[in-house]
């Protein structure tokens, strides 16, 4: 029993995950969860990278995903440090109360 999965499905899944990440970014009120939504969007983009690497048998596409992972790790470390610094000053995690730079 050998069935093939069309690559279109992977790309559609990637688009759906990306849009769910945007919805989370817009709706969530906790700064840590907002940050998690950004990670979800990065993962969705990674999935489409791997899909296209599979389509064209390109190893460099997979290496691009590797670099994205490394940058995401660096970003998570710095971002969470910023969140800790913000929490220490403002004593809240709600993005509604961290709105000093909002128009």
């Amino acid at each position, binding site marked *: 029993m*050998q*069935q*093939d*999965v*069309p*690559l*279109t499905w*992977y*790309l*559609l*899944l990637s*688009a*759906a*995950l*990306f*849009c*769910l*990440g*945007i*919805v*989370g970014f*817009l*709706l969530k*009120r*906790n700064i*840590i*969860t907002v940050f*998690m939504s950004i*990670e*979800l969007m990065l*993962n969705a983009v*990674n*999935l489409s990278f*791997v*899909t296209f690497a*599979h*389509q064209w048998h390109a*190893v*460099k596409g*997979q*290496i691009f*995903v*590797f*670099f994205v*992972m*490394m*940058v*995401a*790790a*660096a970003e*998570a*470390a*710095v971002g*969470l*440090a910023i*969140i*800790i610094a913000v929490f*220490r000053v403002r004593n809240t*995690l*709600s993005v509604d109360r961290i709105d000093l730079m909002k128009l």
Partner: protein
Amino acid sequence: MHLIIFIVFAACCLAGAINLLLQTHPINSALSLIVVMTSLAVLYLLLGAEFLAIAQIIVYAGAIMVLFVFVVMLLNAGREERTLGSRAARIVGLPAVVVLLALFATIILHVNGLGASSASQPITDTAELSAVLFRDLLLPFEVTSVLILIAILGAVALARLGHGDRTVSK
């Protein structure tokens, strides 16, 4: 078999992502994000990227999510209150997301020439990948290690108590 595995783990992915949005406690959101990342690792394996599947589990589900869970515990994050965001986010943002998703779906469904992933196709083994990574792309790889080092230093510098913070906390 291939199709069944894809459907099961794609459903896990979407369910985890939706659960991330529905949960009010950050720790539950973090756990559902781990589900999403682990399912994505299986999908990478289906696409023949064995190294990335393992790296996804180690780097994302391991390192990054442990960092998230640790910060949630450290800051003692409680339930978030639901205010449904600003008006602009609701009025402009959500329809824009729907339009974006429709746009993506239309483009993807109109692309011709996309193949299919099947179990018979060869997987990219780690030797092949590392040959490219350490021969052709050695400089970007080394630059990434410098980036990680700078990120560690930046994280330590940001998270430790500075002079300004001490006056605020008193």
